[in-house]
């Protein structure tokens, strides 16, 4: 990094008073304090508040009557209520399907694209931005586009019929049982470029000498990647999986826009479950309980990761 120093007004050197020094010592903390206070209140305070609500019988309005673990027991029972499935059961199954597909396909696509892009190809500067642009879109726009694209009446199914394959059928986006897969498709389309960028950075960080040595030893490209490059990139896999998992849990807008406001709760996820129980079904306590479960899951993923990242930096 090149550093240019703007001229500082040359202050005449006067002996610093203790008062000045003392103020000087306080200023940085004073500057940081409002931000930290905001975070303390709006993040940690609010989280605790939500935890508190999950132990009350709050419905449309917050209540202070404690009911112990009743809400957690409710969600626990619902977890196994499969026939007819409770909304929570659907949400759990769906987050499994959506999260699993989302993580696996984003990793697979991201790694494939990164390896392909790293093969001394021409036009990388044009191709790479194409894989990345969906990230600039909002999930609502992505969902709107995919809803039209997959609509059997005017989208993909109709187009394939027009091309002559008339028995082709693809109605997932309007089929309640398959909707969640369409959400996954749109999500993968949106995020896989990001994973590609992470892997590409990883690939380009691999020491060239190791690769040269492998080549001299006569290893094929495939073997080099399989045996050397991919194992070296293990930390990138870890980062990518953690980032994707936390994005999957937080997915909310995408479900609403791909499915058209989640009709009948067919594509329910914990995030939409929380919202509908809190704001439309007036069961705020149950809603907060599901929010606490989401928070705990994300904390279980992120806290160890952030802890190790912060430690590594200051070894």
């Amino acid at each position, binding site marked *: *990094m090149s550093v*240019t*120093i*703007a001229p*500082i007004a040359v202050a005449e*050197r006067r002996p610093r008073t203790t008062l000045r020094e003392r103020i000087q010592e306080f*200023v*940085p*903390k004073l*500057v*940081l304090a409002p*931000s930290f206070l*905001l*975070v303390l209140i*709006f*993040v*940690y305070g*609010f*989280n605790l*508040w*939500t935890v508190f*609500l999950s132990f009350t019988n709050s419905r449309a309005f917050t209540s202070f009557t404690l009911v112990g673990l009743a809400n957690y027991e409710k969600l626990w029972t619902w977890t196994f209520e499969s026939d007819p499935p409770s909304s929570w059961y659907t949400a759990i199954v769906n987050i499994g399907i959506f999260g699993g597909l989302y993580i696996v396909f984003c990793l697979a696509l991201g790694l494939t694209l990164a390896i392909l892009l790293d093969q*001394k*190809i021409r036009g*990388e500067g044009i*191709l*790479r931005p194409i894989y990345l*642009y969906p*990230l*600039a*879109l*909002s999930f*609502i*726009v992505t969902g*709107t586009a995919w809803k*039209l*694209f997959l609509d059997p009446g*005017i989208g993909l199914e109709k*187009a394939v019929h027009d091309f002559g394959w008339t028995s082709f059928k693809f109605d997932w986006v309007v089929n309640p049982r398959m909707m969640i897969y369409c959400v996954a498709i749109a999500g993968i*389309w949106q995020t896989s470029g990001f994973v590609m*960028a*992470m892997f590409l950075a990883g690939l380009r960080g691999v020491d060239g000498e190791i690769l040269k040595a492998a*080549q001299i030893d006569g290893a094929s*490209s495939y073997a080099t990647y399989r045996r050397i490059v991919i194992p070296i990139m293990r930390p*990138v896999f870890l*980062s990518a999986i953690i980032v994707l998992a936390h994005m999957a849990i*937080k997915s*909310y*807008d995408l479900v609403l*826009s791909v499915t058209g*406001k989640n009709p009948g709760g067919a594509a329910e996820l*914990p995030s939409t479950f929380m919202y509908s129980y*809190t*704001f439309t079904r007036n069961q705020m306590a149950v809603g907060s309980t599901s*929010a*606490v479960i*989401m*928070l705990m899951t994300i904390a279980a993923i992120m806290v160890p990761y*952030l802890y190790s990242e912060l430690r590594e*930096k200051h070894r």
Partner: protein
Amino acid sequence: MSAADLVTAPPRRFHSGHSVITRVVIYGMLLFFAIIYLVPLLVMVMASLKPLSEVTGGNMFALPKSPTFAPWIRAWGEAAIGVSDTAGISGYFMNSIKMVVPAVVISTLLGALNGYVLTKWRFAGHKLVFGMMLFACFIPFQSVIIPMAVILGLLGQIGNQLTDITGFAFGFGNPTVNLVLCHVVYGLGFTTLFFRNYYEAFPTELVKAAMIDGAGFFQIFRRILLPNSTPIIIVTVIYQFTNIWNDFLFGSTFAAGDQSPITVALNNLVNTSTGVVEYNVNMAAAIIAAAPTLFVYVVAGRYFVRGLMAGAVKG
């Protein structure tokens, strides 16, 4: 070299040349994926330029036979959105701008100051403070949204009282102000992270030298740090702009009707249950909603990628 620089830097040439067939396969796959990533956007653009009959009756991959800008004009100024009286999405577009500009400016400025304090004016416990702010980036908003609703409700009541007394609400209860508050608070973690990592690499000796010369806390920040912060300011502004513009959850919860940001208006427009679905108008609206962030991506893609990577892999 940072992770993002590795992505955007030209590839290192370590492989021996692939055979012609391998090259063809590599380019073929890359092009295939490029088309997959581009097609939803292209279909969206084409649908927005067709009359409705051509969208519902024709092939979505076909070029518009009689291109028209009418859907764009309708989307911008005429289309009915939900039950609101405001016609077209132009008003909501302005709502988003009014929300994004202050939120980005405030959160970036606070992030810069926080990053400065956390690297150049360290105090006991600085790591814990940073860790707590960092975790705040990753919480699911579901776990803070109920307390936020309660607090914003209170602010609204204060606003009403103030209006009764003075005739002005002073921003209390104003949906745009509320959303700015949300986005500043929950964006602080990221902006602090960006500036902290950037200033970490900034030579502390320069700061020390300035201190000896008698420069104060703010003088050092303004004269030494800020003039050298242009790249990270661009990265942070782009990252915050994209995230806040694309937000849906806060917008849909805390701003109703005419005050909604564009993402919420788009979702209401697309999922309206009354009348004929005007797919072409919906697509035009979606492109308008995506235009600002896409534009930023096109003109400053490098910085966009850097922000993404910095938000995922610290370092």
